[in-house]
């Protein structure tokens, strides 16, 4: 099972499902849904945060938040 954490910088993938119900509510609200195409743009300078692009918009998430987004292989 791969998550956003397995993406390399610049890689994209479609969302399959979420590993954590609680976090998934928030992620859904931010527009991260199953089948949404997400691109990992970069990691924060000191790590810990991920800069994502979806539907032309940019979002920052923490490592544990990114880890709960399971992607299609």
């Amino acid at each position, binding site marked *: 099972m791969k998550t956003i954490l397995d993406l390399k910088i610049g890689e994209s993938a479609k969302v399959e499902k979420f590993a954590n*119900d*609680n976090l*998934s*509510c*928030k*992620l*859904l*609200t*931010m*527009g991260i*849904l*199953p089948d949404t195409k997400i691109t990992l*743009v*970069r*990691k*924060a*300078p*000191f*790590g*810990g*945060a991920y*800069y994502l692009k979806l*539907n*032309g*918009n*940019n*979002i*920052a*998430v*923490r490592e544990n*938040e990114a880890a709960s987004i399971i992607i299609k292989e």
Partner: protein
Amino acid sequence: MKDSSKEIVALIGNPNSGKSSLFNILTGLRQQVGNFPGVTVDKKIGSTNLGNNYFVDVIDLPGAYSLYPNSSDEKIVVEILSNPENPNYPDLIIYVLDIMNIERHMLLATQLIDLKIPLIIVLNMTDIADKAGVKYEEDLLEKKLGVKVIPISCREERNIDILKATAFERLKNAKKNDAPTFYKFSNIDQRTIDNLKPYLHEDNDYRTLLIAHHHQWLKNKTAAERINIKNIVAQTNFESLKSQIAETMGRFSKFVPYIHQIQSDKNSGKPSVTDRIDNVITHRFFGPLIFFSIMLLVFQLIFSWSEYPMEWIEKAFAWGGNTLQEVLPESWFTRLLSEGIIAGLGGIMVFIPQITFLFLLVSILEEIGYMSRAVFMFDKILQKFGLNGRSIVALVSSGACAIPAIMSTRTISNRRERLITIMITPLISCSARIPVYTVLIGFIVPAGSYMGFNQQGLAFMGIYLLSIIAALGSAFVFNLILKKEDESYLMMELPIYKAPIWKNILFNVKEKVLTFIIEAGKVIFVISIILWCLASYGPKEKMAAAEIQATEIANERSLNEIETLQLIASLKKENSFVGHLGKFIEPAISPLGFDWKIGIALITSFAAREVFVGTIATIYSIDGTEDEGTIRERMAAEVNPITGNPVYGFATSFSLLIFYVFAMQCMSTLAITKRETKSWKWPIIQFAYMSVLAYFGSLIIFQLFS
């Protein structure tokens, strides 16, 4: 319930939708900022003329992503919309939607449709969409949703008149929202709603469902009601989390196809301007470098811009105090007015230039979209200390003044992280400590250079570093002690870079500065009266004796009139209540190397740190000037009567310096902490732990070096 007969129009939208810009356009100067009861969430309300002098109240509700709230800001929105009895319950909602972010912003729009409150949807940022070549067909969206849709631009004030006319029309004619229900509930949801509706006497399905989700924290529900609702909801195996996920996904899967119909694909694939800027600004190496350069520039600007206004304010208050003393008859009241209240108020007013410029620059950085990038970059590091990426704004601002810094913590949605940020912020060396540092470093570090650097400058840097270490260290300790509550999130959008809308910035700055003046002013007013009384009065005989003694000494040494008055002031201060207090605490502070005179300075500089210099000047009866050079000379000449050594030797000066680095000597900050935490508990803890830190810090330094 409603306090006025005027109708209420609520502005609702996601954060960054441009909602506040619309509020500023609609209400202009007819706006005021208050608080929602019990929480530190700003309540912005104003009135607008919809045409023909038809005035309505406009309320700018906090930004929210959905009716499933994550923060106290978002909870307010649900609190109001789920309760038609709420005094802020709107007669009409204007939903502000960023056309460039329409997918995410549609979620809340469709939730509002289902609440059946009269609704107008405005598509904001059409100016940006036009420039980017993004098309939108508002008529089609209007047909699909059954709600009036108006494209506007707050930046260009486009179509505002149409919006007003439509709002007028909507309030006049159609009281009901007859838009078709957007989301079809699941079977369990529907059964839960059907069971709960009779108990709540509710006529709206979606509102009933929201109460089923949120009854545990909704303030208008009593404990008994909560138990009843809980039992009713349990009958249908209703699971809040599952229902919420299904609802959110259900809504998205219905409106995403609409969006593809009305909007041409904006994903052209080539990097946007924002992408290109972020390649540099959030770069692994250049990102932090740029951040610190920007902050350095911000401080340079704050200090250089504030220099003259601060001088003018100081002079104006000094002039005001003197004039009062000349004009009014000599009495205790005149002195209270001029030496106590006016001097005390002057002590906070002098910070207004710095606070204004700080808010101005931070608001600009926020409006442009830079601050969220800083949050993204530093989140990880700050999390280690129990803080949040969003704390970076406070930590940086506190280098100028802790007050705006504490006020900026409202954006931190996690209560615990916000509290820790508030608690540690005053440890960072603010500008008010600079005059004290200047005097004391002069005693500790000789002028001259070390490896090409100015030695005293290096000492200054060391002090700042120490204060940052103390702040982060304290955060670390608070993080260990305070109980973990809610989960903390980062999940934050990184909006596209935009030119700032100046109107927003000016309103924002004005509102923050006024809050500071009013909130801090109230507390300072009281405390300066108390401190003045303590410093001016003492046991009667002793005060009288002091005056006689001073006159005798003056005769003996044949001093001139000014010198005599200074001597009287000095001896009176020694015999006043503050003087007694100073002597009383002397045993406690002598291990730190302080005598009772320094004790007096410590007590009076509780009002504000920079008072130290003024108090020292009075005690040593230095000619009316507060020139640091003169004061330093006088202090250097002070000799301990018992040992014959200088009082301000290396150890005492160093110890005093450390005391000023750590001690909480700013009543304005305590007043703001009280306001922001809504309790006396946190300012008291803040005062206590910083005092302990100061005491033991100085103790260690003095014992090591004496």
